[in-house]
């Protein structure tokens, strides 16, 4: 059954394209830093005895230009694949580390949102009654308060923020849609014969949820996760851009924020403002492709390609 699904999936072009894009970015994030001599903020690291110090390169270099770094040992020439920003920081290095933090936010934030959503949705749908009422009320209240606005406020609480905290904040606010959808799914599955049979057989609730309902929803859950993954990345970029992102470290949103602040657009430094957003857009497009591809795999009726 599983092998079969995978085989069908691998025949699906959308799935393949999506996996290729997302896979490319993941691999890039993993090995990309190896090709860079710069630290995550784009500074060149030099060693002075035991200590290391950071130095900037020449400012505003277009992609592919050679930068010069002045060190006590003399001038070092380094190539900047994506150019430098107005502080002489290497943009390739910032981008690749920013991508890492984006993927991290997607994984943790999206994962957390999926988990909470699943849990609440399952319980509400399966239990029904007042448990359902209360959980859904909670969900609805959170739905009413726009996520971005809520994010802004929570983010403002924490005065020093890292990527992990940002991910958790996003995870804690992004689950209501998932909960709703999962609840609907659970409701429909609950009515199926196999659940009724399990009940008759005297299985405990948890056992039924995890033993019977869950396996039938794995595909669905996976797709939800992919959407949450992308959603978390987008939410993080928005937060970073308005200045409520991590107060240390780098992210794609912070690069964009800096670019806008330092007039990259007006001064024509497109290599500063365009690539980070492009990476995000492509990465998330890739995720959507995977999602659509999987949808077609799991719902054979939707398959448009043979």
């Amino acid at each position: 059954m599983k092998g079969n699904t995978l085989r069908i999936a691998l025949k699906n072009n959308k799935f393949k394209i999506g996996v290729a894009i997302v896979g490319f970015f993941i691999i890039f994030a993993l090995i990309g830093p190896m090709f860079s001599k710069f630290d995550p903020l784009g500074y060149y690291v030099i060693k002075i005895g035991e200590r290391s110090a950071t130095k900037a390169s020449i400012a505003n270099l277009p992609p592919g230009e050679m930068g010069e770094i002045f060190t006590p040992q003399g001038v070092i020439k380094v190539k900047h694949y994506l150019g430098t920003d107005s502080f002489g920081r290497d943009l390739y290095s910032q981008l690749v580390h920013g991508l890492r933090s984006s993927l991290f936010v997607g994984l943790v934030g999206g994962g957390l949102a999926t988990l909470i959503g699943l849990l609440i949705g399952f319980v509400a749908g399966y239990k029904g009654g007042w448990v359902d009422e209360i959980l859904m009320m909670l969900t609805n209240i959170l739905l009413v308060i726009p996520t971005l606005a809520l994010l802004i406020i929570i983010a403002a609480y924490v005065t020093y923020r890292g990527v992990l905290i940002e991910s958790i904040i996003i995870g804690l606010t992004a689950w209501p849609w998932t909960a709703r959808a999962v609840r609907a799914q659970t409701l429909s599955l609950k009515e199926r014969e196999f659940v009724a049979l399990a009940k008759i057989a005297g299985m405990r609730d948890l056992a039924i949820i995890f033993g019977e309902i869950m396996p039938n929803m794995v595909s669905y859950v996976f797709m939800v996760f992919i959407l949450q993954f992308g959603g978390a990345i987008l939410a993080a970029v928005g937060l970073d851009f308005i200045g409520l992102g991590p107060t240390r470290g780098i992210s794609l949103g912070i690069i964009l924020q800096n670019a806008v602040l330092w007039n990259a657009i007006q001064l024509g430094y497109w290599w500063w403002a365009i690539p980070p957003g492009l990476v995000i857009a492509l990465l998330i497009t890739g995720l959507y492709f995977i999602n659509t591809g999987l949808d077609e795999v799991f719902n054979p009726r939707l398959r448009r390609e043979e």
Partner: protein
Amino acid sequence: MKKLLGAIIALVVFANVLSSGYVSAEELPRDETLYVGGGLWSQPNNFNPLTPWAAVTGTIGLLYETMFLYDPLNDKLEPWLAESGQWVSDNTYEVKLKEGLKWQDGKPLTAEDVKFTFDIAKENGGVGWAPIWDWLSEVKVVDDRTVQFIFSQPHYEEWTYWLYNIPIVPKHVWESIEDPISYANTDNPVGSGMYKLYKTDEMRAIWIRNDDWWGTKVFGKPAPKYIVYVIVYSNNVALSMLVKGDLDWSNFFIPGVPDVKSTYNIVTWYDDKPYHLPANTAFLFLNTQKEPLNNPDFRRALAYAINPDEIAARAFQNQVLPAKPSGLLPVPVFEKIKAKDLEEKYGWKYDPEKAIQILDSLGFKDVNGDGYREFPDGSPMKFEIIVPYGWTDWMEMIRIISEQLASVGIRAEPKFPDYSKYWEDLTKGTFDMAINNFGSQVYATPWQWFNWVLYPDVTPVGEPSYSGNWGRYKNDRVIELLELINTEKDENKKLQYYRELQEIMLKEVPAIPIVYNGAWFEASPAHWTNWPTEKNPYAYPISWNNYWQMGGLKVLLGIKPVKSTTSPAETGTATTSQPAETSQTTTSSGEGGGICGPAALVGLAVVPLLLRKRKR
């Protein structure tokens, strides 16, 4: 579908127009309109001169006027509403008002109004100058044009500051206002100034020339009929407006100006670096209540390890000057009291070797081999440097400082809390190191500057302090000196006291001056010309809140329209040099301006996104 679209748009526009309440169809004539920006950060809705820190820029200056102006370029206090002013005895200051002063509603401005302006501060503690009454005992009207200020304990230096910072308000209007502190004063405010409030909305405040201004016969008429003070939330927008000629006078810090200056004929004070006049000193405050920052030698070692030149170049693209050890701004008022010999003798220069030497001799050594020094007892030593998140040039600044300190073995991690947290740490003294400049600007008296940097009334750590000296440096002699200077009339004695203060600062290093933040000024020659520059230095060209009386007003009197008929093609042709007009401007020293205390207004800043750049 098209119909629907059309209907929606029409409806929306209509709703918009209705809500903004305007009926007239009007486009301001470009050639008579001056577009200014850099001192307005939120929708203009407060024109109350009694609370200058909350008022829209221009409230004092354009609308309400002060008795004197202060010109920092020549260090001169210049009469404005006043004709003259002097100490007639040790504790009495007499002001004679100009003849023919009048309010914008036609009523005469008299000594009674001046008295009222002070009296209202006695009754309302929230008025900006209320603390004066701690040492002022009476304001006496001698005749219609003469007022005497009788002091219980004259604070000569402080008084000089207030002379160009207190806006005279009309008695006949304000005496009937119930809660003057929270009065927004947006409906046809009556001032005495050269401009009247015309309109405001979400994006701007529009001022219209007061053609009946009392000063026309004394100072002439300002050329712009309208002043549109624009809100620009981000400096990239400011730059694009400037290069397109949509913004005539910019007081924003705009990154990249050096790069595009010549392409677009942008006028700056200096043609070459540092491009701008200095406005204030950015200090690295060190928490002197904490080990080992309480040790002056340790602080001195830090000073040796920091290279302001690199900071000016990297964080500010050389749009600022690196600071000297004294921190005194390179303007006449400070040059006058600057003890160069002491700076030579006790000052420092970037010299990491020297820093290492001091640290070694103090016993701060790297014993565990991690590359960073530990306390003499071997416990780890680590600092945090804070600036508000989003103030990007400052963020860059402390990154560089952190690097420089690391190279002598001091671990100082740059941290970027949100503004409110930064402010809390700063005021409560719970930081290690922090950059700040909120009160270190140019004043008519250096006392004001020292009184901020070394502010004597610091609270214990944990309780909020409301003025400078964030590092809570304590020194009884300093407190004494500040008091002595403030109450001393004799200039020579004052000079001695100032020398002593500088010596203490140089020896004790309560805070390390890093750079002189600029009086950011970029002007477009497209529609207005004869801008003040190094070669035509007739005014300090700043339009921030409370800087109008320091030069902004003179700029208005000095600039000339490029042509009365402007065609769009003309933009490139007007160049910065207008030799024909230079001669005439050198004489325009009629006004002066002062800086202003609460100028920190401009620094308001909290918007991480946008403007983090607002340094005054």
